[in-house]
């Protein structure tokens, strides 16, 4: 059964699994030199120019699996030696060019960068081209293409660029840690830092001393993941790793929807605060809108706070699809409550580091939240939940949400809002297209994931937000 979308994810997973295995066995320090040989046994290379480079890159992946560069505040880093330095020529004319008579490309170019050679083929003068793309749109043969690096293409905030040496680099002043570049880089050269080792240490300590209890708070996007097993088996697997219990982050989402609807009525205009990459996007690109960000914590923080308020021995690990949650966990608002963050990729590695075949386990149960808390995992769910909260309170305030799926849509809505006179009063911002179900830390990213989330939502025992919250308030 295929667990990942790409071989890059599989490679990253193998490194995480081996690092985790070594940490469980208390010999991580010694294993650092052995793991590259496990991943790339040789004698011949299978991924890179030679076995030595291949193993050197694995060593860098081990470093990322162990938390990466501690000096770098970003949770996303480039593994420079893994970057293939893809050629980036921008717009170029391919051999598809027929040398036609119309020369629409030349006519449309605002900079006069296109001429035609003696065979009537278009030629772009790179010194004049501004990469506006009008020529590509104008060509009836689609003969002009944009050769852009996958990482740069994936980054909607232009935080990824090329260094003088040709390697990808991330500008931390712009990066919102959404992880889009990680999923798109075909060489796996951009990686999120992993805190898997910290989590294993936490679990080992909890089991050994019984002084702490480690709670797993799982994001509702889990319903579209681990499709080779049942959700109940995933829960059994998480507990088998040593977690005290598993609680739905969706219950935190119910809490947030309830409070956010009050805040919306009070302030009259809000942007959501659930997606940390969206919040970071506002902070970095629309500072004039910062006061419009909901003051409510994210579902992760709301629930983690509830858990810690009621159990002083609790440690909280959030498990979700999101790389930006790793960034959020380090911020002042989250730090006292969230001890660590794992992605679904990392959870898979954790299972396999203990040789837990979850599809063979008995099914446990997971049910804390309402339908509305659960559908936060997909675009539009948060807005539906806020509207539902208003309905349950009997409020006559009308929420007019602008549902933004992906950063491009977020940008347009924010831009409109800064200008005023908009016909919406609530911006639901999700950095990933279609919401958390497309997070960079997901095992699989597919069209059917939204349906899976709705199905899971409908299975919730509590049908309304107030029912789900009745004893946690």
């Amino acid at each position, binding site marked *: 059964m295929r667990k990942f979308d790409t071989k890059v994810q599989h490679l990253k997973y193998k490194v995480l699994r081996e690092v985790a295995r070594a940490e469980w066995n208390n010999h991580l320090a010694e294993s650092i030199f052995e793991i590259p040989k496990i991943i790339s046994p040789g004698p011949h290379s299978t991924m890179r120019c030679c076995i030595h480079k291949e193993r050197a890159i694995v060593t860098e992946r081990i470093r990322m699996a162990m938390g990466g560069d501690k000096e770098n505040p970003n949770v996303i880093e480039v593994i420079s030696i893994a970057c293939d330095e893809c050629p980036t020529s921008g717009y170029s004319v391919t051999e598809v060019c027929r040398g036609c008579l119309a020369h629409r490309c030349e006519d449309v170019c605002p900079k006069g960068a296109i001429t035609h050679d003696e065979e009537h083929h278009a030629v772009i003068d790179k010194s004049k081209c501004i990469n506006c793309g009008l020529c590509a749109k104008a060509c009836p043969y689609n003969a002009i293409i944009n050769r852009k690096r996958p990482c740069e293409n994936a980054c909607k905030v232009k935080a990824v660029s090329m260094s003088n040496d040709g390697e990808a680099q991330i500008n931390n002043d712009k990066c919102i840690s959404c992880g889009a570049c990680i999923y798109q880089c075909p060489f796996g050269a951009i990686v999120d830092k992993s805190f898997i080792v910290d989590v294993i240490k936490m679990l080992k300590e909890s089991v050994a001393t019984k002084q702490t209890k480690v709670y797993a708070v799982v994001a509702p996007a889990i319903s579209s993941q681990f499709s080779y097993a049942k959700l109940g088996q995933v829960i059994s697997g998480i507990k088998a790793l040593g977690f005290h*219990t598993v609680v739905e982050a969706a219950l935190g989402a119910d809490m947030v929807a309830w409070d956010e609807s009050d805040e919306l009525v009070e302030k009259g205009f809000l942007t959501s605060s659930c997606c940390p990459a969206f919040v970071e996007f506002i902070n970095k690109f629309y500072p004039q809108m910062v006061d419009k960000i909901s003051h409510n914590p994210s579902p992760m923080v709301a629930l983690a706070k509830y858990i810690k308020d*009621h159990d002083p021995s609790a440690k909280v690990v959030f498990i979700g699809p999101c790389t930006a949650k790793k960034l959020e966990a380090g911020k002042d608002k989250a730090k006292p409550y969230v001890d660590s963050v794992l992605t679904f990729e990392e959870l898979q590695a954790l299972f396999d580091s203990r040789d837990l075949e979850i599809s063979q386990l008995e099914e446990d*149960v997971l*049910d804390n939240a309402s339908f509305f808390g659960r559908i936060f995992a997909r675009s539009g769910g948060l807005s539906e939940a806020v509207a539902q909260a208003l309905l349950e309170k009997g409020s006559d305030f009308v929420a007019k949400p602008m549902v933004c799926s992906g950063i491009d849509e977020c940008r347009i809505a924010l831009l409109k809002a800064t200008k005023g006179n908009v016909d919406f009063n609530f911006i639901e911002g999700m950095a990933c297209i279609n919401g958390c179900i497309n997070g960079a830390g997901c095992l699989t990213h597919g069209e059917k994931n939204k349906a899976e989330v709705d199905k899971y939502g409908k299975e919730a025992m509590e049908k309304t937000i107030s029912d789900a919250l009745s*004893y946690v308030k």
Partner: protein
Amino acid sequence: MTLTICIGSSCHLKGSKKVAQTFERLIEENNLKDKIEFHATFCMGNCQKGISVGIDDKVYSVTPETAEDFFAKEVLARLGK
């Protein structure tokens, strides 16, 4: 006295909310708000036998049907009522 009800997934599905509502009503009816600290927790490590209810450090198994009886026998009795 600390009275704890488990609201973890397993107990929740078995009806811990009904038990909690029963307890809340009985605490109210018996004017015990000052004597009982009633709160919820996510897991008491007794999932198979839930619904789990804790009195101080001891864990009991209760159902929505036995909740009222349990309250009389274990909670009120301890408080000398």
